[in-house]
């Protein structure tokens, strides 16, 4: 009797700690493989991993914001904003210093990351200093940034980036591994190390778990929140830069689907909606799951528009599973 109970608890605990997502990934891969073996072809695997890397990067920022008890809805428009900003600034730079393409690339990317980081910090400041609702602040910020983005471009793509950026960076390889995957891995590793091995990482959990106690323990809560929203801006911008390089132009229309996808990846990765918990490595598993689902749907020739539907359903299912597995339900 007691054995039985403890086994159920152990299974529940395994499922709640990421086991469910891994099982689902294995299941989907297996079923799809039976119908369409191409899912395990080298090119397809690389493709899935690349998408996972891109989604993981933006989900890192989203995860951190969710750990401190918020949401960042502005990540979608920041992707677009970073995209056109990179393209425009890179164009200017190349005119100023035509011979220094690498420098122009690096500078324009850094400027894009920096601006989006600042926008993120403004979000963080409004949330932390004025204690406004995080999701409304970031929703409103989305409207502001989208307005600027479209006003600048009128919705027209911006071309004129050097091949060393589009092909060398966007489609290039480092030691035989696609650059995008390397960057994704590096980002995840940095955030992972930050969470595990730095004081700041601990403070982030503390602020999300109990802001009052954190303040009493001498943690700068406002500073922490601003930095976190800033990081979310930077990771969104990095995603925008990568997409820009891969598409080969600055696009004001990309990125909107990342809001939901990054939240879904984080929730699937066990980030609590109440704040206080969430780990980088598990969010990557969430991102992998979403990439595989969409890849499998493509391979099985399911209308791509239905993917948003599946995504919505997966999000609700994931939250329900979290509630069920952790048994955290209140009466009333």
């Amino acid at each position, binding site marked *: 009797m007691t054995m039985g109970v403890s086994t159920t608890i152990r299974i529940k605990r395994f499922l709640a700690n990421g086991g469910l997502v891994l099982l689902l990934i294995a299941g989907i891969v297996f079923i799809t493989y039976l119908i369409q073996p191409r899912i395990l072809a080298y090119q397809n695997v690389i493709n899935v991993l690349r998408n996972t890397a891109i989604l993981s990067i933006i989900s890192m920022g989203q995860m951190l914001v969710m750990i401190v008890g918020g949401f960042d809805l502005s990540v979608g428009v920041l992707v677009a904003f970073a995209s056109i900003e990179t393209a425009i600034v890179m164009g200017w730079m190349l005119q100023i210093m035509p011979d220094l393409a690498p420098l122009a690339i690096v500078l324009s990317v850094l400027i894009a990351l920096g601006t989006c980081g600042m926008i993120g910090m403004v979000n963080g400041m409004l949330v932390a200093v004025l204690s406004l*609702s995080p999701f409304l602040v970031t929703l409103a910020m989305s409207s502001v940034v989208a307005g600027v983005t479209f006003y600048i471009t009128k919705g027209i793509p911006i071309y004129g980036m050097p091949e060393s950026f589009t092909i060398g960076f966007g489609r290039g390889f480092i030691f035989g591994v696609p650059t995008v995957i390397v960057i994704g891995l590096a980002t995840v590793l940095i955030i992972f190390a930050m969470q595990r091995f730095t004081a700041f990482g601990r403070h982030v959990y503390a602020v999300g778990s109990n802001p009052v106690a954190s303040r009493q323990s001498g943690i700068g809560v406002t500073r922490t929140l601003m930095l976190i929203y800033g990081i979310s801006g930077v990771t969104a911008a990095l995603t925008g830069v990568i997409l820009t390089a891969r598409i080969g132009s600055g696009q004001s229309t990309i990125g909107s689907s990342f809001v939901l996808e990054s939240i879904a990846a984080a929730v699937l990765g066990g980030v609590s909606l109440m704040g206080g918990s969430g780990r980088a490595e598990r969010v990557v598993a969430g991102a992998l799951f979403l990439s595989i689902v969409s890849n499998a749907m493509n391979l099985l020739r399911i209308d791509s528009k239905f993917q948003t539907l599946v995504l919505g359903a997966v999000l609700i299912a994931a939250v329900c599973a979290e509630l069920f597995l952790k048994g955290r339900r209140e009466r009333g």
Partner: protein
Amino acid sequence: MADTLFSSHLAFLQRLGPLQRLLPSIFVFAGFAMYQPTVISTGNLWNIAIQTSYLAIFTMGQVIVLLTAGLDLSIGLTVSYVSITAALAMMQAVDSPTLALLIFLSTGLMLGAVIGAFNGFFVAVVNINPFVVTLATFNILLALSSTITDGFPVSGFPPLIGEALVNTEIFGIPIPIVIIAALLLVVHILLSRSVFGRSLYLIGSNRRMAFTAGINVRLHLLGAYTLCSALAAIGALLLTARAGSGEPNFGGSLALETIAAAVIGGARLRGGEGGVASAITGALFVTVLSNGMNLARIDGYIQQFSIGAIIILSLIVDRYSHSNRSS
């Protein structure tokens, strides 16, 4: 003594409340009128009145869930989905205009109620964060409304629809304004004089208190979300009739606009405050602003920018006006 002084001051402000909330609209209107005199033309005034009433009914739905300390991000896609599906259903009976009108109205209302009940079920019964639930619903409805007709509008409505829901006037007032005003009156009575309305305010102010006081929290939340989507559906039907076609892209930014309007109108994001007056005054402000910007030929993207900026400002104002009272 201090209590009484404070209260008389407060009571005065509360009495002034709705009027005070009109001031921003009046200022903005006056500003645009000086810049662009066509703003004051009779035609444009009617235009503002009609647009305000459409936005007001959507905002009313949003206010009802904001009251319960929730929100509905899916309201815009509810409008799109209801518009296109009700239009499609009606086209099956295009030969019999009366039947078509009935099908149009009943399909729309039913769909609205079902979507609302879906949101309400997950928020109230399963107890999931309303933001996540309605975000997911948003995406599900987005997929549905963009696939049903591959993104094309459904047109070719029988003229009866237009006559019944758009072009008729009652005592010189366009019928959509009459319908919406009547609905808002009903909602006002419901919120201020029914046990249902009272329960929503108490739940929004403190959900656990409401439960402890014996209020059926789940049932009322379910009702609030259903009512919200039903109102959105009625608005969607009126808009669809006006456009003469079912449109898959009606409600894109409606979530943001309605939340902005509600907050500007004095609804409290943490629940427990707001009413029909918030919906009307807030909708009027957003309408006057975008109408003025349109007439002044201000770029649509700058309008988007301004709405975002205004929300942030109104959030800050909301914060200070409420925290002054509750610190």
